[in-house]
């Protein structure tokens, strides 16, 4: 490896990192500006132009706490369903022998391929019209209750566990439920954390579906109430960008922190197996 190549690689990666991180830095800077400063100098912190006012402003327009709680309930519900259904079916696919196993696995793959836009209209008709679940957490959670990518990750992990472990426990008379609960799940902690991380960003960041299904501002997840603020209110305010960016920071921080803390669980090999099937 020559020196020029190392330098060239450093430049490529450095430019890449800058392009990815700068907008986030700029988001924070912009959210703290008293008056929006779009000049090059405005990209650097200026003590004379710093304020927490924007956070107060956005909070008076859209209740940030309510939004965060709604996002939390929506995300929590989706996570719970994904984990319970996903671990059960992942275990059944990896460890148990039963009729229909091959077909179920084929379904898991098929579900990942059909895009959401085709299901948008019928799901809206069913959930909002027929079941009357508008402005209801259940209505938000239902379409995301199963996460087939997580199923594949769980299955992949359970497949890697040594078969002897299960055989030995079965001979000792342990039931399959006990095997799952006290052997497979404790061992699968890394896969479960990866599954949780991967699932978390779906509902937390989701806009289209909760936007369709919630009309009541008190039930909207933060992504939806912030989007409504951007498209309806922001233009008519004195510092439109400040308040919007403050809301954006509040929406982004929980996920970014989560991923920095657990970054070692979000690695290529787990993810690769999950998506490739």
């Amino acid at each position, binding site marked *: 490896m020559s020196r020029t190549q190392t330098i060239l690689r450093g430049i*490529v990666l450095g430019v890449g990192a800058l392009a990815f991180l700068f907008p986030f830095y700029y988001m924070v800077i912009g959210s703290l500006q008293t008056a929006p400063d779009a000049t090059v100098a405005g990209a650097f912190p200026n003590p004379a132009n710093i304020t927490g006012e924007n956070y107060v402003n956005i909070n008076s327009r859209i209740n940030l706490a309510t939004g965060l709680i709604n996002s939390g309930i929506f995300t929590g519900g989706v996570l719970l369903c994904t984990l319970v259904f996903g671990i*059960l079916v992942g275990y059944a696919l990896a460890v148990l022998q039963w009729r229909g196993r091959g077909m179920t696995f084929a379904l898991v793959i098929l579900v990942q391929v059909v895009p959401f836009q085709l299901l948008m209209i019928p799901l809206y008709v069913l959930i909002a019209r027929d079941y009357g679940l508008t402005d209801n957490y259940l209505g938000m959670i239902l379409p995301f209750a199963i996460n087939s990518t997580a199923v594949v990750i769980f299955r992949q992990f359970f497949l890697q566990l040594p078969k002897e472990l299960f055989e030995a426990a079965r001979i000792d008379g342990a039931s399959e439920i006990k095997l799952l609960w006290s052997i497979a799940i404790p061992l699968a902690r890394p896969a479960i954390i990866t599954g949780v991380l991967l699932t978390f*960003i779906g509902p937390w960041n989701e806009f289209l579906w909760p936007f369709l299904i919630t009309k009541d501002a008190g039930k909207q997840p933060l992504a939806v109430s912030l989007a409504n603020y951007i498209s309806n209110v922001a233009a008519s305010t004195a510092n439109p960008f400040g308040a919007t960016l403050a809301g954006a920071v509040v929406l982004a921080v929980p996920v970014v922190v989560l991923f920095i803390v657990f970054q070692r669980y979000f690695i*290529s090999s787990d993810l690769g197996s999950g998506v490739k099937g």
Partner: protein
Amino acid sequence: MTTATARRAGVSLPPGSSRRHKVFGKNPLGLLFSAPYLIFVILIFAYPLVYAIWIAFHDFFFAAPGAQVDRPFVGLDNFVTALTDPAVLRSFLNVGIFLVINVPLTVVLSMLLATALNKVVHLRAFLRVAFYVPYVTASVAVVAVWLFLFNGGGLVNSILGPLAPDPSWLINSAWAMPTIAIFVTWKQLGFYILLYLSALQNVPKELYESASTDGAGAVRQFFSVTVPGVRPATVLVLLVSTITGANLFTEPYLLTGGGGPDGASASPVLIMYQKGLQQGQPDVASAIGVVLVIGVLIIAFVQNRLVGRED
């Protein structure tokens, strides 16, 4: 599982259970464990999928809950209505422009950055996090900062000075869609970099060694070892980025204020929302959805033939 296990498991079972085995397999509990998942697949996937196609072929409208209404079969009427509407055709052209920019850019940049990242020893974790932060952050949040960066008096234009397009990026009918395509490329790149990183682990080291012995330089090695070595990942990246692109909604809704200027950045899903839910024509919207998915399938098939072939 081995036959030894089966025999052992068979011994522990009570007599008379062998017929049950024939029907449900060795471990019928598997079906029970899978039941919740399967029920949800039927409820929120299979049934809506069939329903979507049914709606597209019928005169479907929103009625009061519980009301008995007649929804006659109308053949291809909804498809004709959809495909003779200039706004719908424009949205398909727009998503075409989007894919032509977004998909190749995604493949090239993510492959390049993953290859560079793969050889790095220092700062590896930091760089990886930096690359996937946009991917894990909500579109709504990053849209806010892009609006700030790319508006008429924004930072991008103050750096470009006289080179800035007029009207500015997101309100310029020629630039609105390309700007959205670049935004989405930037936003999703981290995910594809992770896929390529995973694929790079499977390229045998010996290939690089023998290429090096044959006198191939780094650039030559990249094209004759890395690119063919990660081909399965490329097929996947093409497929996923095409599907993601066809699903485009949030970005035109927020970045260009609902597909503006004058429909120049409206995506098919945005039109489906406007037609189906705002203007009460779910049947036409469903027809657009069916056409869109067929289009995606054709593109995916062609991509697979062109890139996925073994040679």
